[in-house]
């Protein structure tokens, strides 16, 4: 479970996220919706432990326990963004080995070959990231995020600029078998959010303005009205 208590972040006095109270249960697939500047990326960065909140707190599992500020909890997170987080000069295999070495103490604890196999990267394992297309970079990036077998998957508009095949891989690999995982998916794409998620949180100017459980096609009008009314 992820619990955000009165979570806020300000940049130069301007609130990016303003007093968010969010509870994400294990197995829940949550879409984070909002226009540009709504605070989606800032919220995800705080959940990932990259950005420290100005006030409020994040807790994993229980309100009494800490959140992503401690490294052992960050090991439970997989972050995928529109950026690949990969090193262009290195190959797919070298990038995955490097990230695995940051998540695990010894080599016996992980198996790069099976991860590459699962994401169809084996045939291109020795190809440099700088020579890959956007779709292949994103596929490698998903494999990178899954190396630590995360319990919490955070997605920051990962569907931007990728083709239908890679989008299929994204949906299949991240949104299936989620009983033991929680997933937060920040996106502008309402249709994709409805297809992939069970719950939606709508943000505007850093404020949580709407929360919809049991997301369905009928929810689209409600979401659009919530976004348009602001």
């Amino acid at each position, binding site marked *: 479970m992820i619990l955000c208590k009165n979570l806020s972040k300000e940049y130069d006095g301007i609130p990016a996220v303003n007093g968010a109270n969010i509870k994400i249960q294990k197995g829940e697939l949550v879409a984070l919706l909002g226009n540009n500047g709504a605070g989606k990326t800032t919220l995800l960065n705080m959940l*990932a*432990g*990259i*950005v*420290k909140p100005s006030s409020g707190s994040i807790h994993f599992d229980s309100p009494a326990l800490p959140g992503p500020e401690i*490294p*052992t*909890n*960050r*090991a*439970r*997170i997989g*972050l995928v*963004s529109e*950026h*690949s*987080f*990969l*090193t*262009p*000069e*290195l190959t797919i295999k*070298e990038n995955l080995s*490097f*990230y695995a*070495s*940051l*998540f*695990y*103490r010894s080599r016996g*604890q992980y198996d790069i070959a099976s991860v590459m196999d699962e994401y169809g990267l084996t045939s291109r394992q020795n190809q*440099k*990231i700088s020579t890959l297309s956007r779709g292949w*970079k994103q596929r490698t990036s998903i494999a*990178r995020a899954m190396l*630590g077998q995360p319990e919490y998957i955070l997605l920051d508009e990962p569907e931007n600029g990728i083709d239908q095949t890679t989008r299929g891989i994204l949906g299949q690999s991240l949104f299936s078998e989620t009983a033991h995982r929680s997933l937060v998916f920040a996106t502008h794409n309402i249709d994709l959010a409805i297809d992939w998620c069970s719950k939606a949180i709508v943000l505007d100017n850093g404020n949580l303005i709407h929360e919809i459980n049991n997301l369905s096609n009928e929810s689209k009008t409600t979401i659009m009205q919530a976004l348009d009314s602001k």
Partner: protein
Amino acid sequence: MSNRIPRIDQQVFRLFYRELLIEFRAKEQLTTMVIFALTTIIIFQFSFEMRTGNVKVLVPGVLWISVFFASMLSLNRSFSRDQEENASRGIVSAPIDPLSIYISKVLTTTVFLCALEVILVPIINVLLNSPILYIDLIPVLLVGNIGVSATGAIVAVTVANTKSRETLLPVILLPLLLPVLLGCITATGAIIDGQPINKYVHWVHIVAIYDIIFTFASGLMFHFAIEN
């Protein structure tokens, strides 16, 4: 879970290994540093030959000016490269201590500066026709390199996201590094002049104390700098 994530020494080694692997592949940092430093030395050599009788007194300044500006190229590239695919965000989101990122960057720049000096010092010896190959120079070069790297890493990460980072880095770093550069230039001069160790060792101590203070303070501040 705590038994799964790497210890801080392992984190430092793995981040350091990545930096070396990138350099081995791209050959960007060390190559540009060497070319820049050599060009500087050659320009100085021509101008001194025409104007100055005693080149020996200018050698310490030439050496450390070349090292300082060559380090700018390395530091700039080291941090700007991690912005390209936002790799810095990926590394920070991993279960590692930000301090290990700082130590690995300091270690990488120090190693690159040492490698540069291995090439540069004999060339200065030949081109400027001034004997500079002394064993006593090694500790001076080492404390100087650590000072430049430790201070440079914290400034480079602070300016990495700014548009004018190439300009800002030397402008901010040069005043901060004045104690290091003055100490190293004076100690190098004393060694070239053949003075006994007790005449210049206090400069090495001053630079070493500066290194310790700046490394410690920068290590504490690094996670604030990297967040921004």
